[in-house]
């Protein structure tokens, strides 16, 4: 029976070749490490967001009068609604953490270098899309926390002269955060971002597949230094097959991701629900402390401490451009960051600054 199905499929889509080529013959470099699983973990994390997100979508009502109620209904009335909501909320935060970690390890191993510049840029855009997902989803429960965090965050563009107000008004659909903003963010979250995300992800995977996985800079890396002027796929005849060994490692890390998620749901269910997150949004009452999501804290704090806001925004845009096009700024051939003390120093300084700003922004 199974053979017949398989044969039927093979005639039509060539499944045997596909499996042979993509699964059995596909080899990964020998010195690959566990950080190479983070890409797959990200995809798995996104899959969980999609599934739980669709389940939430069934019960959620995107209207200022009902949004809070409907989310409370999901938490307290819908069978297992609490689980989906918790998974979605924990997942959104963990996911951004994993994407950060993925980029960080790629950065540290110098794997963004020629010919993988495009892969990096698309990856950076994916990080941006992930943050946009988080940012737009944050408003949807329509709590005090989400309402005021969004109010503050959508005020940031107004620091830009001439255009700023326009941008902020387009974001909010008006002068302040209202039902119009909720509709906008909802549409953005469930129907504008997903196709953009899928396109970028497709491109990202296509590029990794086409160019082949790079080896780590540690140990045998001489081959990576050759100039790349013409295409040839990098495969690793001496590496080990992706399936089953590395596939199992991938699954292992996905399980770790899930275990962390359920650990948090079990032992810290309110990690992302502080007091203001259990109060319905009230435009007339400003809570004592307003702060955005943790991954926006550092940029937010930076804006706060730079006395001239416009300058602050310019610096942030410049940093973003630097980050996005980093492979073009860093043209050094050496991949191993251990052999590049200057870059290492800069990186450590930037990282420390990020952490400091983040904790500063919390208080």
């Amino acid at each position, binding site marked *: 029976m199974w053979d017949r199905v398989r044969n039927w499929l093979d005639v039509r889509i060539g499944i045997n070749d596909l499996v042979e080529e993509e699964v059995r013959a596909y080899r990964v470099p020998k010195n690959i490490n566990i950080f190479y699983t983070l890409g797959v973990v990200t995809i798995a994390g996104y899959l969980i967001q999609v599934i739980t997100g669709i389940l939430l979508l069934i019960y959620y009502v995107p209207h200022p009068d009902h949004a809070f109620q409907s989310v409370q209904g999901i*938490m307290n009335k819908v069978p297992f609604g609490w689980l989906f909501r918790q998974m979605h909320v924990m997942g959104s935060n963990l996911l951004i953490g994993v994407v950060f970690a993925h980029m960080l390890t790629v950065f540290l191993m110098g794997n963004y270098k020629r010919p993988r510049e495009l892969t990096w840029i698309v990856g950076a855009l994916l990080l941006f899309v992930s943050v946009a997902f988080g940012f737009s989803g944050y408003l949807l429960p329509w709590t005090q926390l989400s309402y005021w965090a969004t109010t503050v965050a959508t005020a940031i563009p107004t620091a830009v002269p001439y255009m700023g107000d326009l941008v902020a008004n387009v974001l909010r659909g008006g002068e302040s955060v209202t039902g119009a903003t909720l509709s906008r963010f909802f549409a953005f979250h469930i129907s504008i971002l997903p196709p953009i995300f899928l396109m970028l992800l497709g491109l990202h995977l296509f590029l990794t597949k086409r160019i082949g996985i790079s080896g780590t800079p540690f140990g045998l890396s001489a081959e990576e230094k050759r100039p790349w002027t013409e295409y040839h796929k990098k495969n690793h005849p001496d590496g080990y097959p992706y399936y089953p060994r590395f596939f199992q490692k991938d699954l292992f890390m996905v399980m770790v991701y*899930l275990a962390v998620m359920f650990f948090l749901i079990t032992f810290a269910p309110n990690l992302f629900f502080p007091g203001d997150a259990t109060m319905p949004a009230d*435009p007339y009452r400003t809570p004592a402390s307003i702060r955005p999501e943790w991954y926006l804290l550092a940029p937010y704090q930076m804006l706060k401490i730079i006395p001239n806001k416009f*300058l602050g925004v310019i610096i942030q845009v410049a940093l973003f451009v630097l980050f996005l096009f980093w492979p073009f700024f860093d043209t050094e051939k050496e991949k191993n960051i251990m052999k590049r003390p200057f870059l290492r120093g800069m990186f450590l300084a930037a990282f420390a600054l990020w952490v400091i700003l983040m904790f500063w922004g919390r208080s």
Partner: protein
Amino acid sequence: MRSLVLSLLLIAGLPGISSAGYREDFAREFMSKTWSGERIEENACIDCHASERMKPVFREIVDEWRKSWHAQNDITCHDCHGGDPKDPSLAMSHQQRGFIGVPPYAKIPDLCGRCHVGILRYFNESGHGKALRTSGKGPHCVVCHGSHNIQKANIEIISEQRCSKCHTYGRAQDMKQAMFLVEKKITEIEDGIKALRRAGIYPEEQEQAFFSTQAEFRTLFHTVDVNLVKERTGEYTRKLDDIEKGISGTFADLRSRKNFSGFLMLLVSGMGVVMLLLSKTPKE
């Protein structure tokens, strides 16, 4: 390539730096002002009464009021005293703007009773209300609650210091004892609701039932009729018991959720260990 990008950045950045002085007001306000845009209103009463022109005893009134539960519920000067907070020159005009000012001692319950209708009714029928009307000796609302720094009420208002001014404390104590059972339940439920909120649950149904039951009971106090309060204690404990049951049911729910997600955690951890072992076994 690098120089191209750098010069592009510079070109984009230059006008930015040159117009950096733009919108200093924005810089000042950014993130420090209260964001409730529509709420920035002028209130002439507060402006003038908090200003240096006012004598210090009167100036304190505004500070007192700011701390009050009324202030948090947007009950301001003119809601009690009348007048027009939007027109500084005629704000306190009795004829044109309906300014009431400070009513005489015996009329104060009517001032508060415009909003606290049920309480006024009970109060008027009570020994206190009758005494106030006939001899002017009874206490009025402000004697027990204060006038400007009015906080959420509870049984602690009944104290020896407050209640023994006009009669022996014995009467007050009888009252306090009669209320004790229900008040204790009220505090328990209040704590339960707070704990639920900390656990991320917004128990709307229970909260509403609780608030109305509590308000009813606290209104009843104003009859200062010990027998009546005793008589109805059973009825109130029953109502509060129902609410309490709902709360403990929610807590039980929370515990079973915890067990379930703990189980899922163990499950995926187990699968993770299996995967790890599989990937470590030598192949081919």
